């Protein structure tokens, strides 16, 4: 091996200047530093890739995207080659094609697995490359035996290293986007592989089950635990009353599985399709989101009151949201001393699960033992959350089975249902009432916006529209890593609504207070925010912070359709905000506290009010300090 390299094409410092690149004869002006891959896409030249992902920094390891660059002796990886001087590139010469074919054949030679039984059959990037490069036989051999065992013991994620192509997208996702680092590279040469710390199953590691890795895996090496067969069995069992709650994020994305462009809502069609699948009732998770807002909003007011008026020294502020099970587990591992900051509210999924097996069962004359409660979620961490031992306040597993958007799409296809062509229908009572606030839980910033709509109205006694046009609290919207909002509570002075009368005597103590809130998504960003709090920075003076484990919030969850990118996530967000707006235009409630079913819940079941003893028993939970070194075999 030679030990030096040839820096004769040294990149000059980056400038604003543009450079002319000629790619397969097409000329394109690009900013200095643009990669060949970006420039090629800008002028309509398609270069195949494998280890490239738009959400991640490029590493240039798979070598599938190599191209000829004039002046360079060897082929160059287009994903990491910056254009800093005029240059000519050829992307599809015989030399390039031969190299790409060799590389694809090499990848196939170390790949073990049966495409026909693979979860990614039909959506596998390695399969696509094999087809594109005309691979007609295994020139460099084929593995006939598995070399690794499959890690499928956990509730959320299945890891089959035999299907890994070592593109490192999962490792980079886990490190760059999530800062969890549950996955890393170990070994070298033929022994190199993606592995967990000490080779333990993912479920015993500091892994938060967010599933961002499997959303970016090009093959079937990382997939979600599939429970569709169990759901099917339950649907086919005549003794079982099978209900499903659907979260807003998969409803904004499921269309992608059926060829619709990202951002096409399919809520109405899905309701019909779920009944055709055999579900006895189709409920809307957003009802429980509204309930969460009341419980969490009241919890926040209570914490503020105890801190600001009663002067209690140990009130944990800022308060953190607790709807995202990936985020909750992240905090349990990485910052257990901050667990008191987490709202004690269960997530909407789990609140709903408890109510289905208590209030709904009693009201419908059903034995909760016969109810199977299924949740359609954008999330694989929700599978873990449903399996948490404490989530049995109904006396049963509050939620029995969690299916992701991808699993549900699979079930619909198996049933021969073409989702886009289904007629629309509504949700079932008694949980049919939802609000726009519940819907926007599916996007980063949505919980905060919903909470603000409710808290501001409760406190001021005035419509939030007086502060924000159409009640759109736009400062907390968007996809910046962190959004901050400081708003001075206007002359608070409305009467104290009955909902919170047991907590505060009046609102005078909030008069003129500058309420400081923040919205955070992606646990890598979360870590920076917690570190800032620890250092006594801006965030330490916050009152309330929304955290979502996944980039983009639930709509970017690990259970959503593959692929994902910022553009796709933005399109899904547009669909979700459009649904919120539609509630208003149709004259429906857009604020959680206006949800009539929520009011009914407090009248009939949670009679001691939000944060009361009943709601604490059914709707609140506790957390587990886990730490970063997890060496037991316990499901963690």
């Amino acid at each position: 091996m030679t030990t030096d390299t040839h820096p004769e094409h040294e990149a000059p410092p980056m400038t604003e200047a543009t450079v002319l690149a000629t790619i397969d004869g097409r000329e394109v002006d690009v900013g200095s530093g643009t990669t060949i891959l970006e420039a090629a896409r800008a002028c309509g030249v398609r270069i195949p890739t494998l280890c490239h992902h738009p959400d991640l920094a490029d590493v240039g390891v798979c070598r599938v995207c190599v191209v000829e660059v004039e002046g360079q002796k060897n082929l160059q990886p287009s994903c990491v080659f910056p254009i800093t001087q005029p240059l000519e590139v050829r992307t599809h010469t015989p030399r390039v094609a031969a190299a790409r074919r060799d590389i694809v054949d090499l990848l196939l030679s170390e790949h073990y697995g049966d495409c026909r039984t693979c979860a990614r059959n039909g959506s596998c990037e390695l399969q696509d490359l094999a087809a594109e490069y005309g691979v007609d036989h295994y020139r460099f051999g084929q593995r006939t035996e598995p070399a690794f065992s499959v890690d499928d013991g956990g509730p959320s994620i299945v890891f089959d290293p035999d299907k890994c192509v070592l593109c490192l997208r999962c490792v980079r996702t886990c490190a760059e986007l999530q800062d969890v680092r549950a996955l890393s590279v170990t070994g070298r040469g033929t022994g190199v592989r993606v592995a967990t710390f000490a080779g333990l199953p993912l479920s015993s590691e500091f892994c938060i089950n967010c599933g961002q890795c499997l959303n970016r895996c090009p093959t079937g090496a990382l997939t979600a635990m599939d429970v569709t067969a169990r759901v099917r069995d339950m649907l086919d069992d005549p003794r079982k009353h099978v209900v499903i709650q659907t979260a807003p994020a998969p409803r904004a994305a499921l269309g992608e599985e059926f060829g619709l462009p990202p951002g096409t809502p399919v809520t109405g069609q899905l309701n019909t399709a779920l009944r055709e699948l055999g579900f006895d009732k189709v409920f809307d998770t957003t009802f429980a989101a509204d309930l969460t807002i009341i419980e969490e909003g009241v919890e926040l007011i209570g914490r503020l009151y105890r801190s600001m008026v009663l002067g209690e020294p140990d009130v944990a502020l800022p308060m953190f949201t607790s709807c995202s099970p990936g985020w909750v587990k992240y905090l349990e591992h990485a910052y257990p001393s901050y667990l008191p900051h987490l709202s004690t509210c269960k997530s909407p999924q789990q609140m709903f699960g408890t109510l289905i097996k208590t209030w709904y069962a009693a009201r419908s004359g059903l034995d909760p033992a016969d109810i199977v409660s299924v949740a359609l979620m954008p999330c694989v961490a929700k599978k873990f959350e449903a399996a948490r031992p404490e989530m049995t306040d109904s006396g049963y597993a509050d939620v029995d089975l969690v299916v992701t958007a991808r699993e549900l799409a699979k079930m619909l296809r198996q049933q021969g249902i073409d989702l886009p062509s289904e007629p629309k229908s509504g949700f079932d009572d008694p949980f049919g009432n939802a609000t726009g606030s519940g819907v926007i839980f599916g996007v980063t910033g949505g919980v905060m916006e919903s909470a603000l709509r409710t808290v501001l109205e409760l406190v001021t006694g005035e419509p939030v529209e007086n502060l924000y046009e159409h009640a759109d609290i736009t400062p907390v919207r968007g996809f910046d890593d962190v959004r901050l909002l400081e708003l001075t509570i206007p002359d608070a002075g409305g009467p104290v609504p009955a909902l919170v009368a047991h907590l505060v005597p009046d609102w005078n103590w909030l008069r003129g207070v500058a309420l400081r809130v923040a919205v955070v998504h992606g646990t890598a960003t979360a870590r920076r925010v917690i570190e800032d709090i620890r250092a006594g920075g801006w965030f330490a003076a916050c009152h309330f912070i929304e955290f979502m484990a996944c980039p983009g919030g639930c709509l970017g969850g690990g259970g959503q359709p593959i692929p994902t990118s910022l553009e796709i996530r933005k399109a899904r967000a547009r669909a979700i905000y459009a649904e919120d707006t539609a509630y208003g235009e149709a004259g429906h409630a857009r604020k959680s506290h206006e949800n009539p079913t929520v009011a009914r819940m407090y009248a009939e079941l949670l009679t001691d009010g939000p944060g009361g003893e009943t709601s604490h028993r059914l709707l609140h939970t506790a957390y587990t300090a886990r730490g970063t070194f997890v060496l037991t075999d316990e499901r963690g």
Partner: protein
Amino acid sequence: MTIRTPLTLATVTPDAGLRAALERAPHEVIEEVTRSDMRGRGGAGFRTGLKWRLASEAPAPDGRRHVVCNADEGEPGTFKDRALLSVVPDLVFEGMTIGAWAIGATSGVVYLRGEYVYLRKGLEECLADRRAAGLLGSDIMGTPGFDFDIRVQLGSGSYLCGEETALLESLEGRRGEPRNRFPYPVVRGLDRAPTIVNNVETFAWVPAIMARGADWFLGIGTSASKGPKLLSISGDVARPGVYEFPFGVTIREVLTASGGENAHAVVVGGACGVCVPASDFARTISYEEASTGGAVIVLGPDRDLLDVAENFLEFFVDESCGQCTPCRVGNPVLLEGVRALKRGECTPERLGELQRLGRTMQDASKCGLGQTSPSFFLSLVDLFGPEILHRVPA
């Protein structure tokens, strides 16, 4: 390891080169090194003066630049750096200090091959002596503001860490895996600062060039390969060891000097080098004809070239970091091909596929390992294709 020829480097007056360098402005030092036309002694042959100029011109936002000496001498059949670090460590450190003056570096690191741990004590003592003598530390040789020191860091046995960017990754505490160009280390090297990474021998020649002048160096060698070169000669020879020759020496002359006259072939460049058959022994050791970082492995008439190829490929399969596809998966395929050839079970079609694969690995691998690991095998097929294809298994 025996040093078989007198070493020019042993005759260089200590610290004369450093004194001469400090009497000039840094850019003048770079000009002198550039004028000497010295090319990197590690094997790739990049021009030292140009490398130093690029590093000196690269912006260093926090004012830091680094000098790194690549002493991770891991190429099979190479041991001349070990000789230099044993015999003239002062010259290596002096060369690094001159490099620091030239590019404006404040810190230097010797990345020492893990297996050379026994050299560490001597190197540390030498560094301590230099500090005591004012040749390292602050205001070196009384030059106000010229502060520079050197530390030794041990590798841990990875061949790949001899690749300069993998070396830098290792220095920074990460897996020893090569980085992507661009930018090159001269722009963003150790801790993201402009860094020159040079071979031990390259640094050792610098004081000689500064003390005796570039013209002295230019007077030795060939038109494209200047100066003397140390070679590590091993294999089927009577007198293995470290030799100094001027660039341009023929392979036959090397064999005569080392007692390998009846060689069947010679591997020039180590495991990543090429096979030179007896009919080509008139070729010269030089960047233009038979280039090497120092390794010359002599293969006698009884030596099976396929055994050698198998041995080399086993080594590369073991030492690949596994990061990029062509190297990780390609080397085992080539190895299996060589074994099939040995068994007499390789068809001409398969041999052709292996050749094309080897070229893809050279063309598309991320770093020098995968780009050069097929070299010996490919040269073997070019030279002896029909013979090795019709091998009757033993």
